């Protein structure tokens, strides 16, 4: 293995004996980092496939086959960050649906899991930092009132970055009913950050029949191996949100120490040795030298 120093942003977890170390909320990254995490969803006939082992996976990093470890998910709690669009286009009834959906997802978390809440209009606000005290997250859901424009890219960046503030397995759920009209950051800048992230983005978009749509949310989700879920209305959001958590728990977390660590973009290809399956994972990651 080449022991080059790799930018920690893409290698945020250290693997030891197949288990991720989850001891610190704010890990120190100045020392050697030697693992790439790949969160993988494998489906057959449209349903997540269970029971796969390390031998079922083959991972190629820039075309080079890697030695892969399958991380035990039982040992690894989740860190879920919700980013909810509370811009003026959201009607009060829709805000109620969104709150109920978020509660549904929070209620599905387990004792060691964490959650945090961001709301955004043109203003990005952390209503609750990541915490294992889920009652605080539930209480925070009562605070926001809709109003203002939409800074979707700004909120996506903030949520994605917060998702990575923990060593846990990161799930970032972002909901929006509008188009970005207020962000300072550009979509391309945030997509670049997503490619450096270990978190997985599930985006939920509602009410999008108004002509051509920008593809930001879809590209954001795909950059992390997640999904964009589109709904016609907010009425069935709760099932959608709960479904996200259920699906996320059925994903596989692979880890490997790259055989080659050249700076720049690395293509990742995940293969599963089963016929007829569909694999969804981040398409690659960005490695940049430490100390730039």
């Amino acid at each position, binding site marked *: 293995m080449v022991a080059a120093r790799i*930018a*920690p*942003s*893409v290698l*945020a977890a250290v693997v030891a004996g197949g288990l991720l170390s989850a001891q610190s909320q*704010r890990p*120190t*990254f100045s020392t050697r980092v030697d693992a790439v995490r790949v969160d993988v969803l494998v489906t057959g006939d449209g349903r997540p496939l269970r029971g796969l082992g390390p031998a079922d996976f083959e991972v190629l990093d820039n075309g080079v086959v890697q030695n892969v470890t399958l991380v035990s998910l039982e040992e690894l709690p989740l860190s879920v960050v919700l980013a909810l669009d509370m*811009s*003026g*286009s959201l009607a009060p009834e829709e805000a109620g649906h969104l709150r109920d959906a978020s509660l549904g997802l929070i209620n599905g978390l387990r004792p060691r899991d964490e959650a945090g809440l*961001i*709301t955004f209009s*043109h*203003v*990005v*606000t*952390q*209503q609750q*930092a990541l915490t294992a005290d889920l009652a605080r997250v539930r209480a925070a859901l009562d*605070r*926001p009132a809709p109003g*203002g*424009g*939409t800074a979707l890219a*700004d909120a996506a*960046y*903030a949520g994605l*970055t*917060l998702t*990575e*503030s923990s060593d846990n397995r990161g799930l970032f759920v972002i909901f929006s009913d*509008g*188009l*970005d*009209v*207020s962000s*300072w*950051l550009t979509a391309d*800048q945030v997509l*670049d*950050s997503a490619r*450096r992230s270990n978190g997985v983005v599930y985006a939920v978009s509602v009410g999008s029949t*108004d*002509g*051509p749509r*920008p593809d930001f949310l879809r590209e954001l989700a795909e950059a992390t191996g997640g999904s964009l879920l589109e709904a016609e209305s907010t009425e069935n959001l709760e099932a959608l949100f709960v479904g996200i958590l259920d699906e996320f728990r059925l994903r596989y977390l692979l880890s490997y120490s790259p055989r080659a660590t050249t700076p720049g973009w690395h293509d990742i290809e995940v293969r599963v040795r089963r016929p007829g399956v569909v694999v969804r994972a981040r398409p690659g990651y960005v490695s*940049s*030298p*430490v100390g*730039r």
Partner: protein
Amino acid sequence: MADRLRRPAIRLLRLPALAVGFAVCVTAGLAGSGSEPPQYAFDEWAGLVERHEPGTLDEAALEISQWSPRQLSLDVLRPISGRVRDPANLRLLRLGAMLHADIAMLVPDEDLPPATTSRSRVIMSDDGRTQGFGARSVHLQVGQLILDRMPADPTTERFGYLWYRATTAWLARRYRFADLAPHLSAARSRFSDDPAVQFDTGCLYETYASPRIQYVRDAVRSRGMGTAVPSHDASLQLAERYFSRAVSLDPQLVEARIRLGRVIGLQGRHDAAIEQLEQALAVTGDPLLQYYGHLFLGHEREATADTAGARRHFERARDLFPTAQSPHLALSRLARVAGALPGALDALAPILVLPADQVQRPDPWWVYPMGIGRMETALVEDLRRFARAER
């Protein structure tokens, strides 16, 4: 004449509470006057004009607000043509333009008679999505037509300039871009060498290039409808042309130079953008303009791979408005790109703990699309003060 542009505008940072809607598609025009004989209710109009106190929604304003566009065309605009030649009438006509501006600014659209022609329909949009149709402001068109028929004596020129600047600011603050385009076209015809009018037009096209307008343009075009909004690239080119003209007419017009730098940068000419932005920053002490200048210069430095320079300018912007989220986001992302997640989190942390209320954490970036709309209060008051002195 561009004094207002040079003054600090730091106090005008709040977003209008409800001003997220705006109109995009322009086709324009009062109801046609047709060939029917005029009713000559001009004297009644003149009496109401004399009774109107500028800046108040009094009985005179309310009464005329209920006149139909057709009635205004026949009973006001047509008779005016024969009266502008008499200097004794000019004061009345200026006050008439003031009254119609007040009606436009003080009477809610829903309380006005509906527009009678489809030519005045505009598309309304909120949060980047189309929300149906509205109408151009009939009363601003009436005021404009009154002024345009008047001779260019010094008093009328001064009043007309104040009128256009104030009403432009009022429209810009409310994002009523469909009204702004023909409004500014008329202003340029009358004040072709005025840098502030060139600046306002540049702001309009700069905003046309933004996602909030281009989303709507795409939606409208996908339905096979026409729009007067140019493409993103064409809008940037037009913005550059008008900002360039503004700074050539008045090199001290700092905000025009800052915006010129930004639109040049958005077209990929980063070195030229840096030159303009540095030139602007060298001469302004206005914190708001410095904020914009440093924010945009940080962006341009980043585009030229000068990360240290970008960080320096984003930090300057952050220090000017510590609670503004945009420079914090920019700094966090710079750290993220460099591989420093803790640095990215540290840069983000100060804004995440702020309350959601925008008033307690203003970010001038949010009101940037308003352009001259930030100065609406002062400009409208200038106009009304002038009109009151004429009564």
